[in-house]
């Protein structure tokens, strides 16, 4: 085989040329003959019973196709984990902006007026809008107790620990919703004919999720539903489950009208009606020795799931397993639950529960350090997980991890100690305060628990007529570089050039189910299967006598072309099998939660302006261990992009709720970071030799959203000497806290101001 390497090299993005020229077709760039436009009539109340629907005069209703729940041929649900979410409301509304009716018309511009002209009378029912209201059972809005799911992790014996502890440190931490804010809104086109069934094109992450949902909704067999992903302009989890809803809507309109139907949300509809990151509350009670050893702890982790189950149980699970951070807990009890509220369901967003519980953990570490009077760095060092120790679920860490080394390197890169000293001196007299903060964390790659085993993903690689190869996966590209990296893996495995490998469109009629494109699983899990399927091609060609082992690129291409010419097709398949020793017990909720973890230390440097109370992030060091980096340019882009989202999560992005409805569903008043709001994020990789996926790569996509918020808030606490335990942390929150602090200080007679 040739020695030229493709893996580890910044080869051009497969679809890059089409993206920079604007030629690539997103869903809104596509159109079909005789296509209608679809629109959604949504609820205006959080909870209630529909009494009457009236269609106001002044709209030519006979020109419209109107779909209600009665038109659904199959089961009225968005099939996912539990079928509790209707595709269209039948009688009871459970959240604002819930879909009730669908309209289609050939003129896109008349639709908003028609939607306005549908009047719905309701009999309101009591509703709940916060974790606390849901827990108090102010109204029972889901099941018998408003609880979607509970988990309990118990390890060791906590009871004696409280008495042995020199300190017991308690804290409560909250995080709010965050909008994914992909720049391309949700959109789909559906067409239907009796022979072929439904074809659905759309901006989506998981073609087979949509496939399953449409089969159930439309009562169609597998072969009569075809789902094709179109180029997707960002997703971040926001196009994991919601596309099944909008796809269902377009499919129902297409079936009833006999025309193709396009539904593309505008920004406001996308923000107000689709999923966001789960709000959360975490309570820590930790027993610590004087020396800074964690003896044990109790963690209560609660997320707000919104009105229906959707993916909440799995989000809760990831958050629960990450709640203990990268630390060793000799004794621990974690209670976790997800509660229902009358808001649109919260859903998948990069990190998937982990950013919430890790924010709490990393803020709590700084609080413990402050209580003990030791440095936050030293406290972390004394409790870092080490190889051979177990996580909270009893998973033995077999990888050579070295968090001390990561921390040392990150501190050096950030010039931490010198800066910390400088800031102390400079902060005394200025109109601003500077601070520096650290977060250490981990992120499990792949589906949680037995998820990968249940999925049993299948991947194919086929030989092409011209001697090149084509990767067959349902794994989708939405910016991360799926197409590029999977082609690198196939080409490198077979000793080919990068140009020799291509990837099939993510079309359920052409590709097998390689699982959803989520959970930082594409490179590690799907990539490994691509490697294995590619090897199968090699073996087939060698067995056929057309190719010798140790072949050149040209020899492979010739043999492959000859085989295809002779036999018509050359395909090789690979299916997931759990690596040895990776066992998860669903009943006991214990075992190997993830085949591999990525590890990281992030350091943020901030300035708090004491006139405007705004915070600027002046420097950001992101150091991580993600196994082998297969594409340095893409990997860096993933980390920097995740950190920027984390800066938004910490400092800017606030969803304003009223009665379960987002009030600021516009880019004008929901603020995400611009180019001037983020520093040049400094991204570094460490390789410790714990290789798992294809060519030693582990998951990378979600990790970078976990660390920025706690690192930044720790830096703000360092700057001001005031504790902050909630995000987003806006200037008004800082102003209030500083004012309150000044008041307390002056009342206490020690008017020293901020340190």
């Amino acid at each position: 085989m040739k020695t030229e390497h493709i893996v580890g090299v910044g080869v051009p993005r497969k679809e890059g040329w089409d993206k920079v020229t604007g030629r690539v077709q997103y869903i809104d760039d596509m159109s079909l003959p005789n296509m209608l436009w679809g629109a959604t009539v949504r609820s205006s109340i959080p909870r209630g019973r529909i009494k009457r629907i009236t269609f106001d005069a002044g709209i030519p209703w006979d020109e419209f196709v109107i779909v209600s729940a009665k038109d659904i041929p199959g089961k009225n649900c968005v099939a996912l984990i539990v079928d509790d979410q209707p595709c269209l409301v039948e009688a009871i509304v459970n959240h604002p902006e819930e879909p009730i009716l669908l309209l289609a018309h050939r003129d896109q511009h008349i639709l908003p007026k028609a939607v306005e002209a549908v009047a719905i009378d309701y009999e309101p029912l009591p509703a709940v809008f916060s974790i606390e209201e849901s827990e108090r059972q102010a109204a029972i809005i889901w099941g018998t107790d408003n609880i979607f799911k509970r988990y309990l992790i118990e390890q060791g014996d906590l009871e004696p620990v409280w008495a042995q502890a020199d300190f017991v440190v308690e804290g409560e931490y909250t995080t709010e919703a965050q909008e994914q804010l992909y720049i391309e809104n949700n959109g789909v086109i559906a067409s239907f004919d009796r022979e072929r069934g439904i074809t659905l094109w759309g901006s989506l992450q998981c073609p087979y999720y949509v496939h399953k949902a449409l089969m159930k909704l439309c009562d169609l067999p597998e072969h009569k539903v075809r789902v094709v992903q179109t180029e997707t302009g960002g997703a971040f989890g926001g196009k994991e489950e919601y596309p099944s809803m909008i796809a269902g809507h377009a499919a129902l309109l297409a079936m009833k009208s006999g025309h193709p139907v396009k539904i593309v949300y505008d920004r406001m509809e996308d923000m107000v009606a689709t999923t966001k990151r789960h709000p959360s509350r975490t309570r820590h009670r930790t027993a610590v020795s004087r020396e800074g050893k964690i003896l044990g702890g109790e963690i209560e982790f609660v997320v707000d799931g919104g009105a229906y189950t959707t993916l909440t149980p799995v989000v809760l699970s990831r958050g629960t397993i990450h709640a203990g951070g990268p630390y060793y807990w000799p004794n621990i009890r974690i209670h976790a639950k997800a509660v229902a509220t009358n808001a649109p369901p919260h859903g998948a967003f990069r990190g998937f529960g982990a950013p919430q519980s890790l924010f709490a953990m990393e803020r709590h570490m700084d609080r413990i350090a402050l209580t003990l009077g030791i440095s936050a760095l030293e406290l972390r060092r004394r409790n870092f997980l080490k190889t051979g120790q177990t996580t909270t679920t009893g998973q033995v860490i077999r990888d050579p991890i070295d968090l001390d080394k990561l921390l040392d390197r990150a501190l050096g890169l950030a010039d931490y100690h010198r800066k910390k000293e400088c800031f102390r001196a400079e902060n005394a007299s200025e109109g601003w305060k500077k601070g520096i903060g650290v977060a250490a964390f981990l992120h499990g790659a792949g589906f949680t628990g037995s998820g990968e085993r249940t999925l049993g993903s299948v991947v194919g690689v086929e030989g092409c007529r011209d001697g090149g190869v084509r990767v067959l996966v349902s794994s989708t590209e939405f910016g991360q570089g799926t197409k590029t990296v999977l082609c690198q893996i196939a080409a490198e495995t077979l000793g080919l050039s990068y140009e020799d490998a291509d990837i099939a469109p993510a079309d359920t009629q052409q590709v097998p189910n390689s699982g959803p494109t989520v959970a930082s699983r594409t490179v590690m899990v799907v990539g490994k299967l691509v490697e294995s399927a590619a090897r199968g091609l090699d073996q087939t060609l060698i067995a056929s006598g057309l190719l010798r082992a140790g072949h050149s690129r040209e020899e492979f291409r010739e043999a492959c072309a000859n085989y295809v010419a002779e036999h018509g097709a050359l395909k090789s398949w690979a299916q997931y099998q759990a690596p040895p020793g990776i066992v998860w017990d669903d009943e006991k909720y214990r075992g190997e939660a993830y085949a591999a973890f990525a590890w990281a230390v992030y350091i943020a440097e901030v300035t708090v302006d004491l006139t405007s109370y705004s915070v600027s992030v002046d420097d950001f060091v992101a150091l991580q261990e993600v196994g082998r980096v297969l594409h340095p340019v893409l990997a860096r882009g993933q980390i920097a992009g995740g950190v920027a989202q984390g800066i938004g999560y910490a400092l800017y992005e606030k969803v304003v709720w009223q009665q379960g409805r987002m009030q600021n569903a516009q880019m004008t008043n929901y603020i995400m970071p611009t180019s001037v709001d983020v520093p040049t994020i400094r991204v570094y990789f460490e390789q410790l030799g714990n290789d798992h996926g294809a060519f030693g790569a582990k998951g990378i996509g979600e990790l970078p959203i976990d660390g920025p918020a706690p690192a930044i808030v720790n830096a703000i606490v360092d700057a001001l000497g005031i504790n902050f335990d909630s995000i987003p942390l806006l200037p008004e929150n800082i102003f209030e806290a500083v004012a309150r602090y000044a008041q307390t200080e002056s009342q206490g007679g020690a008017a020293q101001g901020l340190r």
Partner: protein
Amino acid sequence: MTTSRLQCEVSLTVNGKSQTLLVYPMERLLDVLRQQLGLTGTKEGCGEGECGSCSVLMNGELVTSCLVPVLQAQGAQVVTIEGLALPSHLHPMQQAFLDCGGAQCGICTPGMIMAAYHLLTKKPRPTAREIKDGLAGNLCRCTGYAQICEAVAAAAAQGDRE
């Protein structure tokens, strides 16, 4: 209902080609470019001038085409992303975005490249700060902006060499 609205004629030059079109007076330039002229490289992200995905050049100035009623473009020279590349090769700015990892999901990319192109026409040798300021009207949710800024710097350096 739809045919009762009054349409009128507008003449403008798009990517060097003269066009006379029948439009509704308050139609957005964005929709006319995308739907009538099929220039779908210009994207809609927010519809209110915040995200910059629909950025085009109008008489040499960067505008968000979702906020421009098409009649305002009467007689104007409009350049869209489709007007940058030559059939055989990319514009240096496009090449730089490709090389530096400035495009991830690609939806903000056409608008971002138009903003970057516009910046270099005004400031051929921008400082790092000027690049950030020049792109502050264009939102990107994928990259964290670092590799976009590097692409602009690389294209500027390339311009210097030529």
